[in-house]
């Protein structure tokens, strides 16, 4: 197909000097080289240019009627972890019910602590509270990866979902951000929740007593 057979047998008059009959081959190697390069480029760019997304579900603004939902977790003080995000990548946290008056502020102030977004920061705190669930999910995932349990990806996901639903010990994380917080901070915290496999977390508005706590907090 790509061979061009050149007819060079026309030189009769030269007597002995006979032109050799040979076909001219076009060397396609450089062309192939270039093409494979281009193909690799296009293949890689198509696969990587897809942006990644993180799904977030917010509570509806005016819930119609909170009918008796079994999924509704009980509001237990000792399980409630409040994370308060502030400017300059600061995170404050305390365990317990949010303050409703100045007296509460005084009691919470003693356990109001500062942390950061590093892996020894909130991750440590959250993971400590959520260790039971985390290990459960982690071992299930590991079993699937190593091939110990042969279930499909979908059933693994529903298994994890079920773990989360029936979880009774893990923290209820309340994520609150003040005016100085950056968008990055909130994404980081939500991400931290999914890293630590936290079953229940919500983004809620900060109340004025908590804002007071931030001011009172040690710098």
């Amino acid at each position, binding site marked *: 197909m790509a061979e061009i057979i050149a007819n060079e047998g026309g030189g009769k008059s030269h007597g002995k000097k006979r032109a050799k009959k040979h076909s001219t081959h076009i060397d396609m190697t450089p062309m192939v080289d270039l093409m494979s390069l281009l*193909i690799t480029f296009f293949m890689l760019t198509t696969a990587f240019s897809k942006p990644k*997304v*993180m*799904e977030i579900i917010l509570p509806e603004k005016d819930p119609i009627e909170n009918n008796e939902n079994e999924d509704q977790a009980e509001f237990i003080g000792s399980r409630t972890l409040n994370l308060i995000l502030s400017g300059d990548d600061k995170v404050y946290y305390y365990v317990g019910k949010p303050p409703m008056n100045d007296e509460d502020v005084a009691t919470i102030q003693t356990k109001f602590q500062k942390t950061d977004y590093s892996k020894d920061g909130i991750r440590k705190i959250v993971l400590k509270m959520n260790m039971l669930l985390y290990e459960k999910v982690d071992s299930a995932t590991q079993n699937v990866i190593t091939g110990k349990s042969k279930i499909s990806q979908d059933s693994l996901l529903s298994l994890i979902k079920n773990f989360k639903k029936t979880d009774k010990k893990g923290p209820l994380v309340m994520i609150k951000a003040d005016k100085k917080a950056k968008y990055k901070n*909130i*994404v980081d915290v939500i991400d931290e929740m*999914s890293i630590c496999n936290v079953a229940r977390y919500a983004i809620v508005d900060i109340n004025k007593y908590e804002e007071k706590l931030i001011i009172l907090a040690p710098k």
Partner: protein
Amino acid sequence: MAKLKVKHSTPHIDMTPMVDLFTLLLTFFMLTTSFKPTEAVIVDTPNSISETTAPDKNMMMIFISKDNKLYYSFDNGKDSTSHVRVKVLEEMGKQYGVNFTEKEKEEFEKLGSFGVKMEDMKKWINSKDATERGKYNTGIPYDSTDNQLNKWVLYTRFHNQTVQAAVKGDALADYETAKKVFDILLDNKLNKFNLTTNLEKVEIKVSDYK
């Protein structure tokens, strides 16, 4: 006995089928690649571990820039025959007393994300090039007195009920602005949406945390 004559010739591999195949593949990839649409603003998204990829169709996206301005983009829906973009633009024009010609509507359908006030929309569409267009990209108003973004979202939802929302915020944008965007989405009964992020892998050793 006939003598067996061994032919001495350099083995030549015929590369023609290979080239054929490569050309085919190249054409395929070149045609299927959709290059990133030009975005009105550069947004540096935060990182997360999420590996879900964004849907490439039937989307509306709100961009939050570093300086807390909002930009918006939406597509024609599941298939371009529904002309969602044109319908929404007409609706917005009616709301703000701007009349668009057929040519302008057609032009708008081709354009991508924008951060233009309705007052400047006509000028934006009729701009010759991207630099001229950039002048009108001052961010869509979203305060309570003139919440144009809310209207955009509302009419997009009205003409395309199955549309999925995504927020692409800059890491350094304020949470307050993001909250306002979330509120706009919640006002339009969209409480499940996506946040665009960059993938970042995280390894956890349980023993470190015990």
